[in-house]
């Protein structure tokens, strides 16, 4: 579904990613782990077209997306959440999810300004569908609040709801459980399985090891911008490179 081939990214003289090759198969929940600064979020930004890679190519659903603008990548069916929730402060909880419906709907200036019947119907559909997504995350009774006033955990839910409202084929989650307690994390995992059940492929960045090991069939590990391991959770846990990256070698400790 998603193929990254030898992707590198330089920021000035700093190499954030070097020669990363990564495959995400359709229907999979794939994990992406690595110490802080390993380049995980940069990888997400490359996939979503925020900036193009310095080298290498990215393909999504067999289509070259390497230099595609973010709106075009989004329209192919890639959606994401952010490490620091980026909800729109000038919009309510409900409106944030409605925004997720934006490119799945069509009415533009003339249709919306003159309130053509199809625009009215479309707006009603947007409202109803968005409410369903809010229900899924138990946020329906907070729909008229300003999104940024929600507690962090609920902001994360809302970000997932907004991303899901775009009906993505591939959903990228950037540290979805940071700031959640154990109970919420459990619930979140069930929710992600449910989302996968609807045919969405997931790529998840996580620091919470127990969570990611129980969630993914396959995990890739980044360290200093290079992929140092990839495999099942069991393989990752015993991989010497990974243990070194996370715990340091004895020499490093000394």
């Amino acid at each position: 579904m998603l193929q990254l081939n030898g992707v590198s990214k330089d920021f000035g003289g700093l190499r954030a990613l070097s020669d990363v090759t990564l495959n995400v198969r359709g229907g999979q929940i794939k994990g992406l782990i690595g110490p802080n600064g390993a380049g995980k979020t940069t990888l997400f930004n490359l996939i979503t077209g925020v900036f193009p890679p310095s080298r290498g190519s990215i393909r999504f659903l067999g289509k070259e997306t390497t230099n595609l603008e973010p709106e075009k990548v989004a329209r192919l069916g890639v959606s994401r959440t952010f490490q620091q929730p980026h909800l729109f402060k000038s919009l309510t909880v409900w409106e944030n999810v409605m925004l997720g419906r934006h490119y799945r709907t069509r009415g533009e200036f003339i249709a919306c300004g003159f309130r053509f019947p199809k625009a009215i119907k479309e707006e009603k559909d947007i409202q109803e569908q968005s409410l369903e997504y809010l229900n899924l995350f138990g946020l329906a009774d907070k729909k008229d609040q300003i999104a940024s006033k929600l507690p962090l955990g609920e902001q994360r839910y809302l970000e997932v709801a907004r991303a899901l409202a775009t009906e993505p084929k591939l959903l990228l989650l950037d540290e979805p459980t940071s700031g959640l307690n154990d109970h919420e994390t459990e619930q979140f995992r069930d929710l992600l399985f449910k989302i996968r059940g609807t045919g969405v492929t997931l790529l998840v960045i996580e620091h919470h090891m127990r969570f990611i090991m129980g969630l993914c069939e396959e995990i890739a590990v980044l360290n200093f911008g290079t992929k140092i391991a990839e495999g099942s959770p069991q393989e990752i846990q015993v991989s010497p490179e990974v243990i070194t990256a996370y715990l340091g070698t004895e020499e490093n400790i000394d």
Partner: protein
Amino acid sequence: MGTLLKDRNKLAWLLATVVLLLLPFAFGKGFYLNTMNFIALHAMVAVGLCLLVGYGGQLSISHSAFFAIGAYASAIFCLRYHLPPFTSILLSQGLSALLAWGIGWVVLRLKGHYLAIATLSFTIIVEVLVKEMAWLTGGLQGLSSIPSISIGGWVIDSDYRFYFVAWPITMLLLLFSLNLVDSRMGRIFKAIKENEDIARQFGADVKAYKIKLFIVSSVYASIAGSLYAHFITFISPVTGSIMFAIDIIMVLAFGGFTLLWGAMIGVVSLTFLNEYLTIFADFKRAIYGLALVIIILFFPNGLLLGLRDFGNRIFLFITEGRKKHASA
């Protein structure tokens, strides 16, 4: 709350429309109708600019130019090509939209001051062209004897008749804007204004949307210009001068840059204020300039919006204080 607000807006619109259309019957055909007609024309331009500034986040100083283009194009179609006024007006809007598309495509890559300066240059270019292309525009003499609009044998040649053309159009344009703001397009524009990069990741084609909004906004000014030409029947380079662009920005500074109703209230208040300030003659501009600076310094969102927020804060201060007092 969303639906209630929508209904409140619609209700206010309906009420305002009814009151405005009954006004001439209540007060007769006095000279005030002339002032009201100019208010209608200015309101079209102000509402259009308010859409662009408040929702597109872009300050354009080219609205006087599009007013002039609307006026001149319609007059030229009528006088030089002998088209009926109605057809001329429609054609002029097409021309303005086309021009706005071209200008927008070039200029909307710029932001903030750069955009303001680029649109200002466009206004100056239009002013110069209007003065210099005398074979087409009549140069400094301008164009006169522009035919009035006629609807089914009714010639719109008096303040009284024009009132019932200008105000319905103004209110329809206001309704169009209110609808637009309260739709998926309004939402995406709020999102773009807040964070363009994130909005793009939700599939917003920011460049195209901004150009389209610029076109819509410019056509508002152009419609007002065309109507003006056929109502006054005489236009000259003064018609769309740069001072007019500043006046409209002043209206928004007064009424609120992000509030469509504020634009309406701003036009009405400033027009009447203008009538009283005539005793200051040329000093009027200086007073306006000073007022603009003071408003922008203290109420960057516009005077009325600023005062409302200020009022809210005082109200909160009083109620909070009382609560504290009660709990102590």
